């Protein structure tokens, strides 16, 4: 028993400083967002005088638009992304996970291969395509791919989940006269909800951080996402670091909230359906 306690103590002695070290930049970040420019370089965690102005001035840094516009833009885009991502993953995941059709394995292996494909190979022609269609400087190029199976990984995730659902459920429904479509909407769709929640969350998190596409396709300030607005902030002649750090911190808040809130839902989802990932 004593050696076990010692081992636990040893783990804590390593883990505690280590996790604090990992979190330290984040904690410092919170404090720094309240600091004046003069104080920013100081290693102290908290400022002597709290500069709430960092938040108010930062929020209004652009003469034409406030961060409210940028947050609204991003959230609007995210709503469509999540709807598209979830719907596509559910349909396609069911198709691959349950239905037998010709060339299924062939297409499925293609799907797996696309997960390894670097996005840069398609980005130039995609840009040309969207440019020709007149969709540059709009959200279409950012949202549309989500409706067309953009996240191959998400499809795969749902496929795995669908395969875990007992086939007896489908068969029983089939005997009762349900079609494949009926089975999908009445039986599979409700059961794969936990997987779909996961898909939704990660679609949100990843497209929030997908700076590259936003940079590529959005050019007018009124359409800017939070990420692009921050970049505009950084490119200013004289960067107000305190304000920038304050706004940067705000920009990760939605992801952080979503992550912590949704975890609970997800766990409940597993518990209520009795399905294990």
């Amino acid at each position, binding site marked *: 028993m004593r050696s076990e306690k010692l081992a636990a103590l040893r783990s804590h002695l390593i883990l505690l400083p280590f996790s604090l070290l990992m979190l330290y930049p984040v904690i*410092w970040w919170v404090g720094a967002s309240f600091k004046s420019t003069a104080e920013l370089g100081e290693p102290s965690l908290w400022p002597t005088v709290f500069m709430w102005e960092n938040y108010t001035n930062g929020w209004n840094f652009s003469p034409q638009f406030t961060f409210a516009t940028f947050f609204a833009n991003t959230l609007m885009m995210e709503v469509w992304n999540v709807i598209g991502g979830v719907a596509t993953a559910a349909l396609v995941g069911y198709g691959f996970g349950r239905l037998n059709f010709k060339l299924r394995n*062939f297409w499925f292996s293609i799907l797996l291969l696309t997960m390894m*494909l670097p996005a840069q190979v398609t980005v130039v022609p995609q840009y040309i395509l969207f440019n020709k269609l007149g969709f540059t400087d709009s959200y279409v190029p950012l949202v549309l791919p989500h409706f067309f199976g953009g996240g191959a990984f998400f499809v795969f995730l749902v496929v795995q989940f669908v395969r875990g659902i007992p086939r007896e459920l489908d068969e029983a429904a089939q005997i009762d006269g349900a079609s494949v479509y009926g089975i999908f909407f009445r039986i599979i769709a409700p059961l794969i909800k936990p997987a779909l929640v*996961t898909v939704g969350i990660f679609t949100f998190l990843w497209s929030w951080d997908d700076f590259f596409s936003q940079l590529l396709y959005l050019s007018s300030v009124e359409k800017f996402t939070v990420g692009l607005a*921050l970049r505009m902030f950084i490119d200013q002649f004289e960067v107000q670091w305190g304000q920038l750090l304050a706004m940067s911190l705000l920009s990760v808040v939605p992801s952080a909230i979503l992550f912590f809130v949704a975890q609970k839902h997800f766990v409940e989802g597993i518990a209520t359906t009795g399905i294990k990932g």
Partner: protein
Amino acid sequence: MFTLSYYYWFTIYRVQQSSTIYPALKRGLAMLNKKQSRWKITGHDIAGYVFISPWLIGFLLLTLWPILQSFYLSFTDYSLLDSPTWTGTDNYESIFTKDRLFMKSLTVTFTFVLLAVPIKLFFSLMVAILLNKKVRGLNWYRTAIYFPSLIGGSIAVSALWRNMFGLDGYVNHVLSWFGIEGIGWISNPDTALGTLILLNAWQFGSTMVIFLAGLKQIPKDLYESASVDGASKLRQFFKITIPMLSPVMFFNLVLGIINAFQMFTSAFIITQGGPANGTYMYVLFLYEKAFKQYEMGYASALAWILLVIIAAFTAINFLVSKYWVFYESDGGKAK
């Protein structure tokens, strides 16, 4: 608390663990070779294609077609304004013979990949092993360690990093306590890439979670019988943990390399490729060629070269994996 990401990464890990990719690929290829005896289309086929149609349309229009088009464009001169003019292998020739920036960005990217990937793998493995023990407050530790990865790729963190490693930034102030005079970590060509590698290493959370999932899969009785046989902890680590975990390591290695080659945001925001092009990552180079100078043909050639490099790395990984990755279902190492 960590069920969500755990589940998520665990599924990724199973892509490889269940060796889905290999058999699926083999079956797919076999089906192409084998003349299908029955080509009759049934109701099942229609339903199947109805359900996968969103992905299939997307794949054909937004992936396959662009890949083919970018291959074609790589042999042309194209500025978006006029139509592409065929220039043969000119783009490739000037990339390989004249373009100094290409060689520079390639060197930088290789350095980044070769340093960042092993560092990240090493850290995440060590931490995963620590977290695999029954310790109180484990969830808290996991959250703390994972949190940087949650926000890590964002532009916000790049801004943070740029400030912390600046000449008058946080890091130098801490160093001054110890009497060390700091340098401009980001403006110094020798250290700039290092700050990016450090930022990358800070976000080892997801890799760690995959390792953790793998560690939980190792049957406990292996260790028990090894203990009975008198094997030391160290020996157990090298003879049980490492081989049993090798499929996960392999998976993390492959994905880590693929991701590292595509690093963009932090190089773009923190260093803008500088100083003296010391952090001029390949994708940054590609981006500037395509969307600053509008040399679409040239950029397409760069994209194809990147694809070939990544494919080569992945293929080598798969080939070498025969010698070190241990699959339980094979009953041992494949010769």
